């Protein structure tokens, strides 16, 4: 394999891994803390993309300063994080924690179905384009190929998210509280931790990350109905591979899938579709709890 190809594979792989990480990290955060496979994650992504595309459109139509488009992306995600935290966590899941955990998943599935149509009610079926931020950043030549800087910037954003997460979990009080809640919900409650509040905040963070994934990707795609369904599957696969509920797992899972996929596209494109499933199958058989399974308080 020549060096140029290797570099291209790594760059492509890193970009795709970053995309996967952004898509998956919110899912794994919520799963890790609340033990809820949050199917509405797909809706967060879709809403993030729609809202960002809308705001970006408004921003540039008003001919406001060009880089403000990026502000819109984060604004959209933050707004949705808060709204979904309140609506889905406080308005729905809160009433279901005492129930069977499967019921909670099913409730998020139901909410996901409903939200798919809410998108159509709000934004109709026409696609939205928000290409301006992507145009703005221009391109770079790497190893003789042109790459657009916007996609490259995704690597930076993902790394920043990962770093902030790592810092929060290991270096802050909130992180310690989170770890306690993850390890043993009841125990931490009896230690005086307000688990309800932790759940709400976590959910908002997870929703923010899900929406940010959609919002940041929006300028590179055509935002239209159905984008959420695909994302649930993809995020789920990454999270399964990495270990459900583990943030390093999501990172590693995204890297493994991203690089393998890029390699297969360049070397053996026939198997591209299988890459993610093949990795998932192998991981499931050899290490069903994923590459990085978070610690579990086992009660017997």
């Amino acid at each position: 394999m020549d060096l140029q190809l290797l570099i291209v594979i790594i760059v492509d792989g890193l970009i795709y891994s970053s995309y996967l990480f952004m898509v998956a990290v919110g899912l794994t955060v919520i799963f890790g803390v609340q033990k809820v496979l949050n199917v509405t994650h797909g809706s967060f992504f879709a809403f993030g993309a729609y809202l960002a595309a809308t705001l970006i459109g408004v921003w540039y139509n008003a001919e406001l300063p060009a880089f403000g488009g990026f502000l819109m992306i984060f604004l959209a995600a933050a707004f949705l994080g808060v709204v979904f935290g309140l609506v889905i966590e406080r308005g729905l899941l809160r009433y279901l924690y005492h129930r069977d955990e499967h019921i909670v998943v099913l409730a998020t599935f139901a909410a996901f179905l409903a939200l798919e149509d809410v998108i159509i009610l709000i934004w109709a079926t026409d696609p939205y384009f928000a290409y301006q931020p992507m145009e703005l950043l221009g391109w770079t030549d790497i190893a003789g190929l042109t790459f657009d800087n916007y996609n490259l910037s995704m690597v930076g954003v993902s790394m920043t998210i990962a770093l902030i997460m790592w810092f929060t979990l290991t270096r802050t009080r909130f992180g310690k509280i989170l770890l306690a809640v993850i390890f043993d919900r009841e125990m931490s409650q009896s230690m005086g931790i307000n688990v309800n509040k932790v759940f709400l905040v976590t959910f908002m963070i997870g929703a923010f990350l899900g929406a940010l994934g959609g919002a940041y990707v929006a300028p590179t795609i055509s935002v239209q109905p159905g984008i959420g369904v695909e994302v649930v599957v993809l995020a789920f696969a990454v999270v399964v591979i990495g270990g459900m509920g583990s943030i390093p797992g999501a990172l590693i899972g995204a890297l493994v899938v991203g690089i393998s996929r890029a390699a297969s596209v360049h070397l053996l494109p026939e198997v591209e579709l299988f890459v993610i499933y093949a990795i998932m199958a192998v991981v499931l058989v050899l290490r069903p709890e994923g590459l990085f399974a978070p610690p579990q308080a086992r009660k017997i």
Partner: protein
Amino acid sequence: MTFGIKRSGALFAAAALLAGTGLAQAQDKVKMAVPTFLTGAGAPAFGIPAKKGSELIVRGINEGTLPAPYNTPGFAGRMVDAIIYDEAGGGTKQVTELRNKVQKEKVDLVVGYISSGTCSAVTNVAEELKILTIETVCGTPRVFEELDKNPKYVFRTMNHATGNNVSAAHYIAKTRKGQVKGFVGLNQNYAWGQDSWRDFELAMRHLAPEAKPSSKQQFPKIFAGQYGAEISALLRGKEKLVHSSFWGGDLEALIGQGSARGLFHKKDFVLTVGETVAYRLGKKFPQGLMIGARGPYGMYAVDDPNPLNQWFQKEYRKAYGEPPAQPAYQYAQGILAAKYAYDTAAKKAGKFPTTDQVIEALEGATFPTFVGEVKMALSKGHQAVTDDLWGVTVWDEKRGETVLKDVIVFPASCIMPPEGVASIPWLEGGMKGAKC
């Protein structure tokens, strides 16, 4: 029915028509189910334009405002009640829906279907239910070549997808003779993408034998949305020609991500259904691409002077503020076929026709459409053939629209297999019997 005006229903209907109200008694209506994607990824590129085209043409038919020869109101004088519903949810669900529409809502006919998957699932059920079904957009040749070899109730009023890929190969052979050394495919990994590539590659083998297919065909997952690695691979590859049957959001994403990386300057693209997104992307749609519309529809019809076509262009733009793309035409054409069949059968029968009479009228018929005519020439008169057109995109500043240049028309007899020959054997055998 409860008002005691049942006895002279037809007269009443005619009166209502004259009054322009479109009112008629329920039993004097033709109930037409129109499945199209209202939700999901298929909606924006195909489903919604198809819905708009259907609504427009049905309104025109009911009001009797279409140009000749479709200028009589209704189907054989009866108002058309179009029930537009969602095609999303997969084959099983659509079979259920078809049964509901036929058995519960008692529709008289079905016009529609975009996805080849849906057509594969519903075709035999439609035969079983004995419901006149005019498939409009779905492209797989398997419908009549494999699943329903002796069709009675099912028709398809446009070319199947093979024709489109064959004409694409013809266009390349004609316009780039000897220039194409190699070509590569970028198609979604599902039946449509796989079939499109297979047809194109087989056609190229005979029409441009000097061009060699790459050993690395890209088949990304449908709705993947991220094509960075594929774009890199295309850019690295030495093949200059790229064939893609991408559509909808995937195509728009590809164009967005590819444009930012100069993909469309460096490579020649053949986008078999590129027309479906060209209007929506406006100036963002790259110039110099070969795009297909699977027949004389949409962008290929835009300047045709045929009054019916001009009516459609004008009314569509008026109603929806955008030009009609191919699905709008294709659904409208399916509905026109129904009107043609009902009207012809009624003339022959001297009264409102039975379904069998309508079928008889449509079988093997040739009827005028927006541009040229549709011949129900294949599969025992159930599979239509039309001319196909290919050209290269260019931005028309004056109109503020993408238009096509260097357009070449390929006659139906050149691009579709002859009667009784299935597509793949025909392609593999070197397209014998094609009259170009």
